[in-house]
């Protein structure tokens, strides 16, 4: 039986981990390779790097970082941020990424998803869906896609978008609630579930996790195949092992070995 994946997400900028990883004593808390190794040892099921470097010129720094990580860690690695062209995907995959997450390029040009999936296979194309609830209190829930860290609205319905990118070849959806991101109030379960029940591809729940119960809810109630978390792992609030135990205690399948 396929196991629920627990995925730590590291924000990186100019080849460094933003805020650093503090759950273990690393010689250099900002070194992405050191951080990746620590999560590998901690039993993480995958690792995601989200590059938030503003400039697109320093792509070489990111590629070098991915290369060094892939050489040191024999675990699946997803890289997102600044992916605009087929060549960006090719460069990341050649550097050692297993999956590449695209957004907002997918929003601006949906043919890009199709082109990418046909070239590299749907298994390595993740589409990041950043959504905000736009319905009012008492109305049936509705979410729309937002880009640029939730600042720019697009007017695109999140569920319709999810369905469309999957039909074009997205192999996985990374669903982030922009309402919940950074709040530690838990994933937007209704959003996660609405999308997970709509598409046949795996959904990764993201945005807002603050407790282990939130992770359990993301899978049990949100029907996510994987849960992504950042600060609660980096700052050592919980370990990956504790997260797995919590899922297991809730009767969900996890990989303990």
């Amino acid at each position, binding site marked *: *039986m396929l196991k629920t994946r627990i995925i730590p997400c590291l924000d990186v900028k100019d080849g460094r981990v933003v805020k650093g990883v503090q759950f273990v004593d690393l010689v250099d808390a900002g070194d992405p390779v050191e951080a990746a190794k620590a999560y590998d040892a901690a039993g993480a099921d995958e690792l995601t790097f989200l590059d938030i470097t503003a400039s697109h010129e320093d792509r070489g720094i990111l590629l070098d970082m991915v290369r060094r990580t*892939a050489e040191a860690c024999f675990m699946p690695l997803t890289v997102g941020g600044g992916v605009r062209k087929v060549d960006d995907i090719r460069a990341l995959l050649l550097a050692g990424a*297993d999956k590449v997450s695209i957004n907002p390029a997918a929003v601006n040009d949906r043919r890009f998803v199709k082109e990418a999936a046909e070239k590299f296979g749907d298994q390595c194309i993740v589409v990041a869906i950043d959504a905000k609830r736009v319905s009012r209190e008492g109305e049936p829930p509705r979410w729309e896609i937002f880009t640029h860290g939730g600042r720019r609205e697009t007017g695109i319905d999140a569920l319709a978008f999810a369905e469309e990118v999957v039909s074009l070849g997205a192999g996985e959806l990374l669903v982030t609630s922009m309402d919940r991101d950074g709040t530690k109030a838990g994933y937007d379960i209704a959003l996660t579930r609405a999308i997970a029940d709509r598409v046949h*591809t*795996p959904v990764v729940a993201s945005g807002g996790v603050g407790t282990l119960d939130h992770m359990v809810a993301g899978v049990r109630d949100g029907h996510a*195949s*994987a849960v992504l978390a950042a600060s609660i792992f980096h700052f050592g609030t919980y370990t990956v092992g504790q997260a797995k135990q919590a899922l297991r205690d809730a009767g969900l399948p996890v*990989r303990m*070995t």
Partner: protein
Amino acid sequence: MSVAIIDYGSGNLHSAQKAFERAAREAGLATAVEVSGDPAVVARAERIVLPGVGAFADCRRGLDAVPGMVETLVEQVRRRGKPFLGICVGMQLMASRGLEYVTTEGLDWMPGDVVRIRPSDPSLKIPHMGWNALDARRPHALLDGIATGPDGLHAYFVHSYHLTASAPSDVVATTDHGGAITAMVARDNMAGVQFHPEKSQTLGLALIGNFLRWRP
């Protein structure tokens, strides 16, 4: 000892190379691991690895595009009996045919078709992506010392198609995703794994170490 990992433009092979080097170190084997698209290098190597990611037809096209590579593989693996490991689509290419988007001929070393996974439970997701345990159907040297079964080690899978072998005896291990999915096949000096040993941490490094020691 020397191992050639065949480079035919199908994805990153650097992490695979590193994983083979590390497994060799851990097994105490002096091993040169070379990533190469040169049939001469493949012909010289004592062990041959065929990786592959993406779509079946694309991979077949890529392999055919390297002059002399398929002929070299047939000569070294089929005639000379060198130990061979196919990984992911590299394993699928061992089949007779791939039925992904279009029907494409495989190498026909492991009779059977590569077909889309159809889980009995429609709520199960495709691609089959993530960690799953192996159910060993029969013993094999590549699984030596690897705990299988529901409480065993896990392998990392990411695929939407799998090889359905015509001869049940070719299937060494399956995994469950709404039905049995072929995880590993083997016959004589040839083995293939649907999962990614280079991404499968403990299980992966152990399996690669076994492959390096394998005397079929």
